[in-house]
């Protein structure tokens, strides 16, 4: 008999059975926001009903999450701080032995709510969106005055000792300010870290895509700047999507191709997204969906359909998990691609937005497309 006590949980394996319940639940507690950012993934989705649930519905749901052993709740929106009952919602999460994090534009954070979050001792982080080093850049897509209010919100959180981080969404109007943004966030504001992604072909961004989303040149520039910043600030700039994530992933793929290496387990198939194995999302109207970016895929309704039943038996969710069994060789889109053995097909939500199917590689993060469009990899840095 051996008693194992492991300090780290294993990553989800391709053939692993699902967890009994999700480890994390992302909850869009409101469909309201005081800003209208031009690349917002949340608004302008014709599949979504933008309405809020009353307090009692969320309180009951958080009781259920606690009984299911959920460990973390991410409060998103809309803008979570717009809800006057936010403290009450947070208290119910804490009372049910869970932690929480909040995704925010920062502009509605007050001393009172920051003090409350700090007192709980359970706030993993408040992530504030900051898209530039100055108002001119940040406000270009988020609206006049939003930079000043976001920075004010961050300083309030810092004053109260609430863990705070930032998210930089990269687009054509801030890509040249990335260096300044990093200096501002990490040195001037003293944040421990920030994460990056890029404006994606979702929600409001779809109507602004042509002039907002990174073109090949800007994408390449962003990769070069971010990798250089990574060397200057090791471990303090993160990304699970967008140019920085692509630079690392594509660098590894290119090295593997040049070395004629065999693909690793999970590569050469639609395995990129592990979210359906660990987390679930609830829209502001109480609809379960696999992910905020797959908001059209309705799996059930909170307080009517038990979470555990939705998680374990939803046909749509299990079909999404089964996406991993699709070999990239099955897609005409990938025919003849020398990166195929090392590719994982990327984000299913962007695949859906661009092709109409989640069971398809995402053209957005396709290395071959990037190279065909004139892009080149910053090879000496890639994958470092």
């Amino acid at each position: 008999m051996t008693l194992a006590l492991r300090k780290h949980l294993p990553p989800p394996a391709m053939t692993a059975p699902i967890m009994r319940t999700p480890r994390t639940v992302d909850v869009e507690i409101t469909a309201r926001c005081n800003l209208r950012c031009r690349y917002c993934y949340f608004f302008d989705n014709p599949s979504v009903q933008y309405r809020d649930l009353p307090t009692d519905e969320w309180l009951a749901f958080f009781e259920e999450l606690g009984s299911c052993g959920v460990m973390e709740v991410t409060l998103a929106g809309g803008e979570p701080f717009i809800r006057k009952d936010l403290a009450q919602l947070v208290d119910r999460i804490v009372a049910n032995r869970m932690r929480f994090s909040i995704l925010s534009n920062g502009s509605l954070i007050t001393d009172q709510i920051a003090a409350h979050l700090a007192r709980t001792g359970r706030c993993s982080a408040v992530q504030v969106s900051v898209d530039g080093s100055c108002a001119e850049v940040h406000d270009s897509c988020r609206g006049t005055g939003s930079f000043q209010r976001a920075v004010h919100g961050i300083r309030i959180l810092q004053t109260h000792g609430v863990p705070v981080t930032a998210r930089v969404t990269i687009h054509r109007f801030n890509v040249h300010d990335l260096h300044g943004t990093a200096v501002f966030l990490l040195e001037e504001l003293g944040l421990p870290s920030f994460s990056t992604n890029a404006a994606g072909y979702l929600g409001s961004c779809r109507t602004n895509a042509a002039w907002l989303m990174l073109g090949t040149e800007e994408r390449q520039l962003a990769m070069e700047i971010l990798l250089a910043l990574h060397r200057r600030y090791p471990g303090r700039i993160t990304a699970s999507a967008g140019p920085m994530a692509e630079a690392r992933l594509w660098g590894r793929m290119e090295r593997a191709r040049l070395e004629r290496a065999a693909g690793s387990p999970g590569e050469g198939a639609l395995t990129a997204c592990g979210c359906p194995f660990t987390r679930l999302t609830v829209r502001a109207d109480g609809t379960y969906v696999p992910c905020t970016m797959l908001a059209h895929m309705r799996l059930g309704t909170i307080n009517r359909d038990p979470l555990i039943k939705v998680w374990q038996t939803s046909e749509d969710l299990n079909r999404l998990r089964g996406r991993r069994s699709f070999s990239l060789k099955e897609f005409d889109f990938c025919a003849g691609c020398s990166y195929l053995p090392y590719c994982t097909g990327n984000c299913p939500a962007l695949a859906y937005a661009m092709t109409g199917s989640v069971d398809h590689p995402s053209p957005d993060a396709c290395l071959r497309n990037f190279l065909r469009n004139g892009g080149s990899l910053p090879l000496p840095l890639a994958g470092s």
Partner: protein
Amino acid sequence: MQNLRLQAPVPNPLVVLREEFDDWAVLFNPDTARAVGVNPIGVSVWKLLDGRRTVDQIVREIDRQYDSVPECAPDDIGGFIDQLATGGFVGYEVERAAP
């Protein structure tokens, strides 16, 4: 100081036991964000922690529940509970000093 084997470990009431399909589980302390994976016997031990059973009594109960328990089991179980205590998942009652 008393021998810990003779004391009854008390589970931290905030700790969540997330049981999985394969009988493994995760113990999660929301106050510290620490999570540890435990195997099925670890889960059995956790469920026996009630603030009344001593470590020795837990060892005997495991011996009663399972076949072919090896000789090293008492040390393994004691070590496991020690690790849980170090991580804040269990504690021991402290005797109050006389006023």
